[in-house]
């Protein structure tokens, strides 16, 4: 009998407490948001998610990488709420999504330059898009041809699930021509993350790899890239002015217009607090309303140096 009494007390208390929990603030948003996709963006999105969770302690945001293709596939398979991608969805993917009852909604969340990195001991400082094409298709195999040491060139790429891989393939391997049949050289190493590319380039004098600006550090050297005669380093200014030839958008995709807590998260990404995280991670923020401060600081920077 005593046991039954205790059980009843606990049950009543539980109901009461649960009721309390809800009644503290019924307007407080809560829930779970699953974000999947771009490995280029994963660190920045993680930082945004952490800031967001400080503002909304009852919403949990999970951030997973794997590559833009992974994010897009899981949006279509309905296993994530927000897919991040460092490339636009292909018409064929949108068509497949519609067949699965998913209507992708595209939001540009930041801009990025695809940086080409080499080892710090490599004397080569600049390459044209044509040079990159020759290197990554395997037409050119020695650094000597580009003013470097007499060393073999080891080309590093991301896996095929990577949006950066797709972007690089379209712009450098196929040189923007849709019907081009050129492929990455078969000797190209396909690594599973941008960090793995950083590790290999930092330790290998013969290596060349590409990745999003967010992964640039002083452990590797970013090359200046040019279409023909003028070369530009991958900096925020050059991406903003679009003078850096490998500039692109970073995207978030939702199924239809974002609603509820997902809308709050997307709004937060585009807010100054969210955009600051992208800036801190080394990307270029979206300028929803061009502020006076940004051009000022950029011109200030160039004048001073």
């Amino acid at each position, binding site marked *: 009998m005593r046991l039954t009494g205790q059980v009843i007390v606990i049950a009543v208390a539980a109901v009461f407490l649960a009721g309390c929990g809800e009644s503290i603030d019924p307007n407080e948003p809560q829930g779970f948001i699953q974000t999947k996709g771009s490995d280029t963006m994963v660190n920045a999105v993680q930082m945004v998610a952490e800031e967001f969770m400080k503002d909304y302690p009852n919403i949990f945001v999970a951030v997973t990488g794997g590559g833009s293709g992974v994010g897009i*596939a899981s949006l279509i398979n309905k296993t994530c709420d927000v897919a991040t991608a460092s490339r636009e969805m292909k018409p064929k993917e949108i068509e497949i999504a519609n067949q699965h009852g998913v209507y992708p909604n595209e939001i540009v969340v930041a801009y990025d330059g695809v940086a080409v990195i080499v080892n710090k001991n490599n004397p080569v400082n600049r390459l044209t898009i044509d040079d990159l094409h020759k290197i990554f298709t395997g037409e050119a195999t020695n650094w000597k041809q580009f003013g470097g040491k007499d060393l073999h060139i080891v080309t590093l790429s991301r896996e*095929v699930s990577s949006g950066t891989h797709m972007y690089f393939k379209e712009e450098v391997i196929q040189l923007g021509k849709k019907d081009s049949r050129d492929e990455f050289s*078969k*000797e190209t*190493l396909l*690594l599973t993350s941008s960090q*793995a590319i950083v590790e*290999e380039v930092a330790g290998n004098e013969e290596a060349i790899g590409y990745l999003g600006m967010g992964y640039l550090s002083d452990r590797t050297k970013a090359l200046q890239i040019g279409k023909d005669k003028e070369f530009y380093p991958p900096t925020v200014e050059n991406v903003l002015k679009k003078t850096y030839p490998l500039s692109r958008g970073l995207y978030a995709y939702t199924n239809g217009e974002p609603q509820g807590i997902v809308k709050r998260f997307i709004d937060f990404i585009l807010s100054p607090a969210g955009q600051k995280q992208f800036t801190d991670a080394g990307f270029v923020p979206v300028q929803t309303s061009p502020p006076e401060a940004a051009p000022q600081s950029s011109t200030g920077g160039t004048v001073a140096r």
Partner: protein
Amino acid sequence: MKRLWRRISEPIIELCIRVSGLAVVIFVFLIFLFLLRDSLSLFRQYPLGQFLFGRKWLPISEPPQFGVIPLLLGSVLVTFWAVVICVPLGVGSAMFIAEVAPKALKNVLKSFVEILAAIPSVVLGFLGIIWLGPVLRDTFHLSTGMCGLTGSLLLAFMALPTIISISEDALTGVPRSYREAAFGLGATRWQTLWRVILPSASSGILAAVMLGIGRVVGETMVVLMVTGNAPVIPTSILQPLRTLTATIAGEMGETVGGSEHYYALFAVGLVLFAITFTVNFIADLFLRRARR
């Protein structure tokens, strides 16, 4: 009362055991059917001959090419070298543990072998990227440490516990009388071990080797992390290559259910299944012979 209970409980327990036994068979069969169904879907869209004998793996090109030859050779080459490295080491240490080592050392060694088996493969892969790869690059003057040999060495390391413990069982299983007879005939310890015990345990050791091979062929994380994954037709173990398992793991996340690429990965899975099935089947044959 007790007798009645026993009369009821016996058949119930028997039924439970029978169901669990059958469940395993059914699961394997269902997995096989599932693999077969999805991989056969590929061949409605893509010719079987081009899959089996194609020399190029270009899954996201237009039109895509799904030639399994480079992946298959990648797996075979990595496995071959892993076996070359781990079999002598594994059988050697099994011989030491079973026959030579004093009892105290034997127990210590056995528990260390078990700890070796408990190291997660991601951790080994990480060591491969950070440490083993660069070391091999500098010793062999390679252009990159992300090559087949790095994978082979780590895989050999992973297969060692399987090979050691099963061979050790086989060696200790040799009847005492064999040993006594050999010593009685005036054979030295080495002669007894090499000429008498090893040959009589050979079926068990072969089974251990085959199970080790099965482990190596199916291992994914390590090869995905350290072998460079370049889909070339490999000519040397010192160059980057791509295995069957790494291909499935690296590409599965981005395929949309029902696409050609998705089915192609299932077909790769079927090839892998066929290999491991054959290897395990042979191992089983040897184990059975060992028991007789």
